[in-house]
């Protein structure tokens, strides 16, 4: 029982982190693509800004990955 609970505690954060980060990334990429199609001449600048924004969002998802890895290391079968 304890193992199952620990596994759930390890799995739920990474799932929640991935889902929320994917929503934020969707928003970033859709907005950047909108801007690029409206004004193709500023596409390179938008692409750079989009990458930085995505990296910042992705960092949050990776923090949850690290927490999950730490928790998964504590699971005793």
């Amino acid at each position, binding site marked *: 029982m304890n193992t199952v609970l620990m596994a759930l505690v390890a799995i739920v954060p990474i799932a929640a982190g991935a889902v929320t980060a994917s929503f934020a990334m969707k928003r970033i990429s859709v907005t950047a693509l909108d801007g690029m199609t409206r004004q193709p001449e500023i596409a390179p600048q938008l692409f750079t800004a989009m990458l*930085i924004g*995505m990296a910042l969002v992705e960092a949050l998802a990776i923090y949850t990955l690290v927490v999950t890895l730490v928790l998964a290391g504590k699971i005793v079968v």
Partner: protein
Amino acid sequence: MSGSLWAVDSTGLVVIVNALIVAGALVGLGWFLSRTALTSGVPEGRQVVGEFAIDFFLNKARAVAHGYDRDSVVQTVTPFLGTFFFFILLCNLFVLLPLPVVNRPPTSFFSVTLALAVSAVIGNLVLVTRFKGPAGAIKHLFWPNPMQWVSELTDVLSLSLRLFGNIGGEYMTLVLVAAVVPVGIPLILHVLGLIPSFVQALVFTLLTASFLAGAMHRDDRPKKARRRWLGGKRAEPV
């Protein structure tokens, strides 16, 4: 201290050897690209490749530098950014090698990414000290927020964890999938893995550049220079 510093296990040895291979490859590549006589006219051959690579980082460095000593800032920052990009890119691409033990990318170890992030942040501080003086660097750490120096620590953490999470996660996925389905599927994963390899190297470089731009932003120029700069007669871009 009895030998513990030099006691390296096999994975540590792989990291060190791979990082040395990458460093050697970069030095060799640079020597090869700049070996021919360089021309200031229309370049051809190797010079085109070298200039294409340098040009990208020149533009990034120009975005960092403002003010009257822009030329020297650009000349110093461009190799700083380029080194990080090519080192991380070649390290990430190690996963593509068709060799069983050697193909572990050095950036899939947290110690390597931590070292890279620490050198990026300390390098930023050194560059700020070089161009704004020690007082400027201390001001950057404690002004306008007295706890501003904490952001340097979180920069290290976020840079290193991002690179490690992406590349290490990719490698872990690849190993797990290859253990189940050894033929076919790993090829697709390798092709998909090319994208994060490139993007993460780019992101590390861009974030270092943007942290540097935030630190180098100067509003403490002499009054005369500021007036000249704002008076419509802006210096020509480099």
